[in-house]
């Protein structure tokens, strides 16, 4: 008789294990869902493209001219839009400066050193292809001249207005071969046509610079590239061409030409209900401004409990650079000036056809569908500006993302961390400014001589140069906020709530399934096993007793 309980116990245990296995392995129940029809959020009545402006600029006599230069067009614009240039001259798009209201630090492209082309100083003729102005070729540029404000770069709706490196912010006035000796030609812009085709900024206008930052499509940001020109729903639910079809300015609402939503002044932790458009709004570009800080339905109320710790972007942008274009993850300037076996400069592409090496610029690493790195962020970043001291024994953080778990204005944000290596002054211990672009004898891309390039760059930046340089590791962190995926593609719970999940390196917050106390787990499992054992013993005794009595 004793043989039976002996057999029953292990069999029961195995049955329990099998049941558990089958339960875990059972295929997911197929939920019968009606296939959604391909519908457009744009009503048919307004789907037909037509002007929303009340003014047809092609009918204005002021614009019936054969304009020869960009400033001539601006002068014509200012005849009616009398305050426009003054407004623009107060914006970052014009000054390339930005003062941090919290710390007082003066940042902006003009002052910081970035991880890509490093600094526009001494390279203005090239870099100013992305300045909303004409003629900034060196430090003598007069920021008060109104006719030098470039209206067309943001408002041309022909899609033909193009500014090339090397022209100090002017468009192409005559047909030229570009790049030189490439056999490719760029046609002169038709300024009259552009001036008569004015409208609100389109994706083409914004994307001309913001999609191609750092000199290549998608290189800089990771969540901004030319795929957003005609995106599908999967790439961006708001910009989906067949859906909401948002332009950039739908979120980046402007006031007096000041564009909201700059990375220099990010609203990292907006709270409260959704805002009414038209009402004074400090951060119209933030998700919460439309969705509120409790965006999920009652059915998913638990998700709303995450909004005091997580940025919306953390779950809703599962990866960035979600296309074949990809984004640049590192730029190693120390490899620049390396020549090929024949002693001549050369270039190489990676397996996907993206720039991988160039003797002029160094080595790059690219990736598509990048998993973000997650950090606490309160909207404030402190930047390394030209002349700031560095510790070359450590990786130099070109911007330090502010915030932490105990800061109520902080949220966990997805970021792109761009790694690099760039020159610094060994004795003065600051990052150098180098003269890269140009055809003169000291330009790095012309004669491949670092000493001359740094010497000229530092002189333009008014900084002493010891004459000794080396290369230091650098990092630049970008909060990710574009390429919002459909809600069905938001991160699933387990991707964060697990030991090696996406948030494994985030400190200062307790996360079930990621964190735990070993002794508590041991006690819990012991209790569970004891309960199972007690049940089995109890059942066994009852079976044994009933048999004995019966």
């Amino acid at each position, binding site marked *: 008789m004793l*043989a*039976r309980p002996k*057999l029953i116990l*292990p*069999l029961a245990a*195995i049955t329990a*294990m*099998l049941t558990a*296995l089958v339960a875990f*392995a059972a295929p997911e129940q197929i939920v019968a869902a009606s296939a959604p029809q391909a519908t457009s959020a744009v009503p048919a009545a307004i789907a037909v493209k037509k002007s929303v402006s009340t003014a047809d600029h092609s009918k204005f006599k002021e614009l019936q001219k054969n304009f020869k230069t960009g400033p001539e067009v601006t002068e014509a614009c200012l005849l009616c839009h009398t305050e426009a240039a003054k407004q623009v001259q107060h914006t970052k798009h014009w000054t390339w400066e930005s003062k941090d209201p919290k710390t007082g630090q003066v940042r902006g492209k003009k002052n910081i050193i970035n991880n890509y082309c490093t600094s526009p100083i001494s390279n203005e003729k090239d870099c100013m292809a992305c300045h909303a102005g004409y003629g900034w070729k060196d430090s003598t540029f007069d920021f008060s001249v109104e006719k030098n404000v470039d209206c067309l770069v943001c408002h041309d709706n022909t899609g033909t207005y193009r500014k090339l490196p090397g022209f100090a912010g002017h468009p192409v006035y005559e047909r030229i071969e570009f790049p030189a000796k490439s056999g490719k030609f760029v046609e002169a812009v038709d300024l009259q046509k552009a001036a008569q085709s004015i409208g609100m900024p389109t994706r083409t206008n914004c994307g001309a610079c913001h999609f191609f930052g750092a000199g290549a499509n998608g290189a800089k940001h990771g969540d901004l590239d030319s795929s957003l020109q005609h995106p*599908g*729903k*999967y*790439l961006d639910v708001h910009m*989906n061409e067949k859906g909401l079809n948002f332009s950039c300015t739908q979120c980046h609402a402007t006031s007096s030409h000041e564009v909201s939503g700059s990375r220099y002044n990010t609203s990292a932790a907006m709270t409260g209900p959704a805002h009414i458009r038209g009402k004074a709004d400090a951060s119209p570009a933030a998700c919460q401004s439309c969705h509120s800080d409790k965006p999920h339905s009652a059915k998913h109320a638990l998700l709303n409990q995450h909004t005091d710790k997580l940025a919306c972007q953390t779950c809703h942008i*599962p*990866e960035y650079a*979600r296309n074949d274009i990809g984004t640049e993850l590192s730029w190693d300037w120390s490899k620049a000036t390396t020549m090929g076996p024949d002693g001549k400069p050369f270039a*190489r*592409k*990676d*397996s*996907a*056809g993206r720039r*991988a090496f160039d003797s002029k610029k160094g080595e790059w690493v*690219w*990736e*598509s*569908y*990048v*998993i973000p790195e997650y950090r606490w962020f309160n909207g404030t970043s402190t930047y390394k500006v030209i002349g700031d001291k560095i510790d070359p024994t450590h990786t130099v953080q070109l911007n330090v993302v502010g915030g932490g778990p105990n800061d109520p204005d902080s949220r966990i944000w997805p970021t792109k961390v761009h790694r690099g290596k760039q020159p610094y002054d060994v004795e003065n211990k600051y990052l150098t400014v180098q003269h890269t672009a140009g055809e003169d004898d000291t330009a790095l891309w012309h004669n491949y001589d670092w000493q001359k390039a740094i010497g000229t760059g530092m002189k333009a930046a008014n900084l002493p140069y010891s004459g000794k340089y080396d290369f230091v590791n650098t990092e630049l962190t970008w909060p990710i906020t574009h390429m919002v*995926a*459909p809600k*069905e*593609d938001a991160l699933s719970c387990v*991707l964060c709530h697990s030991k*090696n999940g*996406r948030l494994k390196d985030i400190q200062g917050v307790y996360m079930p399934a990621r964190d735990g106390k070993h002794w508590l787990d041991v006690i819990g499992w012991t209790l569970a096993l004891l309960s199972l054992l007690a049940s089995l013993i109890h059942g066994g005794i009852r079976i044994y007793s009933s048999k004995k009595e019966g």
Partner: protein
Amino acid sequence: MLKVIGGFFLGLIVLGVLAYSYAGSLMFREVESPFGVEETIARIQQNIQNTGNGWALSGLRNPGKAVEADGGNTLPVMMIEACSTKYSGPILKDDSVRFLSILMPCKISVYKKNDGKTYIGMMNAGLMGKMFGPMVGETMGHVAADQAKFIQFDPSKPAPAMIKGVPGAAAGGAGASAAGGC
């Protein structure tokens, strides 16, 4: 007697559990790649072309594109398709095993996971082949040996360009067979 029968069934259950747990990993292999998705694909494609034995690329398929077209997202998944008539021929000529054409062309999957790393997935051709008789077993054994060469990388060599358009297999679809020869 009861002990013997009980032990027999217990053994069966344990065997079933083991088979259930490990069958997947025996039939298919997954290895981590030291490179990104595109470079892994390009290097595998290059290895396939250099392996000989009649191997030719027959397609590069992106199953994620259909998901994207439907408005959804997937991490990148790319299927490299290759074929060798030297190995496919004998199987396709034999009525009893011609159904194995379902395994053709040979596929190698390159994909990214949520840990950000790139992986290579492939069928364990050697083990699968043994289940279908000596001829198929021997043929698939050769395929398995070549498959191992496909994923041997030499990092000292520069990354080749990924071959996106395989002649005759632009979409990696039905036309794929034209290039690979099977």
